[in-house]
């Protein structure tokens, strides 16, 4: 993994929220990730695993206070975003990196027309362009995402949820970004609309040659969209690999748990096996493996020592003592 190869590479990133009543809350811990040009990386995990915080960290919009990036670096095309000045960061946001938010119902400013909101990002990043040109581009963007251009002067409340998400996508892609961060883009939508939106994103991503970081807790979405998948638990990567690796050879007990809590459509009627317990309190993380308290295979070592991210095979890594050992045994046995 050479840094210059990857479009985005995160190294040892830690983000904390410090509040008066809650104390220090470690949302992201020593996280490292790479995203190659043109690929789609899925970040999968439960609510509260720190996925959104990672996205905000990359965008440089972690709410501060209470949030603070305590260590690490985020290289985007070889440059550390965390070392950039605010003003430089503003130039990158919306232009080179842009973001789609979870809830389209609230992501649009209710008092501006959708046209104004698309034009806003264009104006910021194409200062030379004339008024007419920007408006043309906004109309064109609307049509690209499948909304008739003549609705440009309407307000967000006049659109349905799916339409609003299309508009949010139009805003995010207006400047043809190199990296698109999509934070649960379909969670708030109906299933039929979900498929349309995913298809639209896939299509535009291909056309614009954009790389994508897709945050979701929906393994179905992952299967559809992602080249590679990172499973996030308690603010760290517990398993990462190609989508095929993860789906065929899930190694971390948490990943297995995620799959077991999915109802099966094809197979026989099996009982769902939800993962018992809840995420550890991020203000009070256990010393060992953060998943150990919920893990059926946990041993003493898991409770005491924090596992490393160890290779399973090829680009497939897992952060689990047992899985890593088993794999070696497996190799030895085979």
């Amino acid at each position, binding site marked *: 993994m050479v840094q210059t190869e990857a479009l985005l590479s995160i190294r040892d990133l830690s983000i904390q929220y410090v509040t008066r009543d809650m104390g220090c809350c470690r949302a992201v811990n020593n996280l490292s990730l790479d995203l190659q040009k043109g690929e789609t990386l899925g970040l999968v995990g439960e609510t509260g695993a720190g996925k959104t915080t990672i996205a905000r960290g990359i*965008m440089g919009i972690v709410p501060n206070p209470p949030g603070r990036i305590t260590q690490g670096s985020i290289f985007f095309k070889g440059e550390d975003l965390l070392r950039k000045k605010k003003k430089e960061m503003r130039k990158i946001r*919306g232009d080179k990196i842009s973001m789609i*938010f979870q809830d389209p119902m609230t992501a649009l400013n209710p008092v501006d*027309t959708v046209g104004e909101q698309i034009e806003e*990002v264009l104006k910021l990043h194409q200062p030379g362009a004339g008024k007419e040109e920007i408006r043309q581009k906004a109309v064109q963007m609307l049509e690209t995402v499948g909304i008739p251009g003549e609705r440009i002067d309407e307000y967000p409340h006049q659109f349905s949820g799916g339409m609003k998400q299309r508009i949010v996508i139009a*805003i995010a892609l207006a400047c043809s970004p190199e990296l698109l961060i999509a934070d649960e883009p379909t969670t708030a939508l109906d299933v039929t609309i979900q498929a349309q939106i995913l298809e639209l994103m896939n299509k535009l991503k291909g056309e614009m040659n954009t790389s994508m970081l897709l945050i979701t807790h929906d393994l179905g979405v992952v299967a559809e969209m992602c080249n590679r998948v990172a499973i996030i638990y308690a603010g760290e990567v517990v398993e990462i690999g190609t989508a095929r690796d993860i789906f065929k050879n899930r190694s971390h007990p948490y990943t297995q748990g995620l799959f077991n809590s999915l109802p099966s459509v094809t197979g026989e009627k099996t009982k769902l096996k939800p993962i018992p317990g809840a995420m550890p309190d991020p203000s009070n993380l256990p010393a060992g493996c953060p998943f150990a308290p919920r893990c059926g295979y946990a041993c003493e070592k898991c409770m005491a020592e924090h596992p490393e991210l160890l290779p399973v095979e090829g680009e497939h890594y897992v952060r689990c003592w047992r899985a890593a050992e088993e794999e070696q045994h497996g190799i030895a046995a085979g």
Partner: protein
Amino acid sequence: MLYYIGKRVLLMIPVLIAVSFLIFSLLYLAPGDPARIILGDDAPESAILEKREELGLDDPFLVQYFRYIYNIVTRFDFGISYATGEPVVKSLLERYPVTIELALCCMFMMIIMGLPIGILSAVKQYSLLDNVSVTIGLVAVSMPNFWLGLVLIMIFSLRLRWLPASGFYGIKYWILPAMTVGFSNAASLLRTTRSAMLECIRQDYVDTARAKGQSEIRIILHHVLGNAWIPILTVIGMTFGRLLGGAIISEQIFSIPGLGKLMIDSINMRDYPMVRGGVLMLAVSFSVMNLLVDILYTFIDPRLKTQFAHRRFRKRAS
């Protein structure tokens, strides 16, 4: 849009009629025979009967009410003052500008002090500035303006002798009354602005704007304040009523010849036509102010704007 404004204006008319009816009947029930009030306690019975006849006091209540409204609408005639024998409307028109001037003055102070500090305090939540302004705001909201007025007079007029304690002859005379009423209202505007801003500052569209690379200042002024206007405007509109009420008290304290002082004086002299006219005028001003605020909403909130502009289109669509 015009349709909406027209509708609001028309809707205001029944309210105003009801207000006038309420005020008229309340003061109709007030103790004391008007004829006796005018002529004095030792007037002969025959003169009183004659006066009652002349004023139409023996007519049924409703007849008197409609005559009153009819005279206002057709001739802008609010009746004759019991105390001076002159038309009420003359005194009202003389005093009205003073009260409105004072209220606008207070409003100006309130907006100048309350709005920027409220915005800053929301943007820098939990900072020193925020804590200080929230504390001062709390104290100021809890301070009755008649007491603040007295304290200000004690400090600035009696002790320091910087500002005059009474009268209304120039800028110097305005400062204390405007502070008296403006201060507590500024505090309530500050509190509303702060909480309205805080409500909007954590919204997703603010993050969307950040993700676009928009600058913080533009985000605060355009995206946050743009959405916080509605509660802020409501408070400004509602406060106008409080300012009018407060104006009565500060006019009393600072001996300012406005409507409020006129009313209190008239109440003491049992000059009910004057009171009635004054209250009616203040109530109408308050209603007009609220109407203006309502109309302003439609310019600010597109949900209202489109509701009326695209009414037909929406019906078909749904």
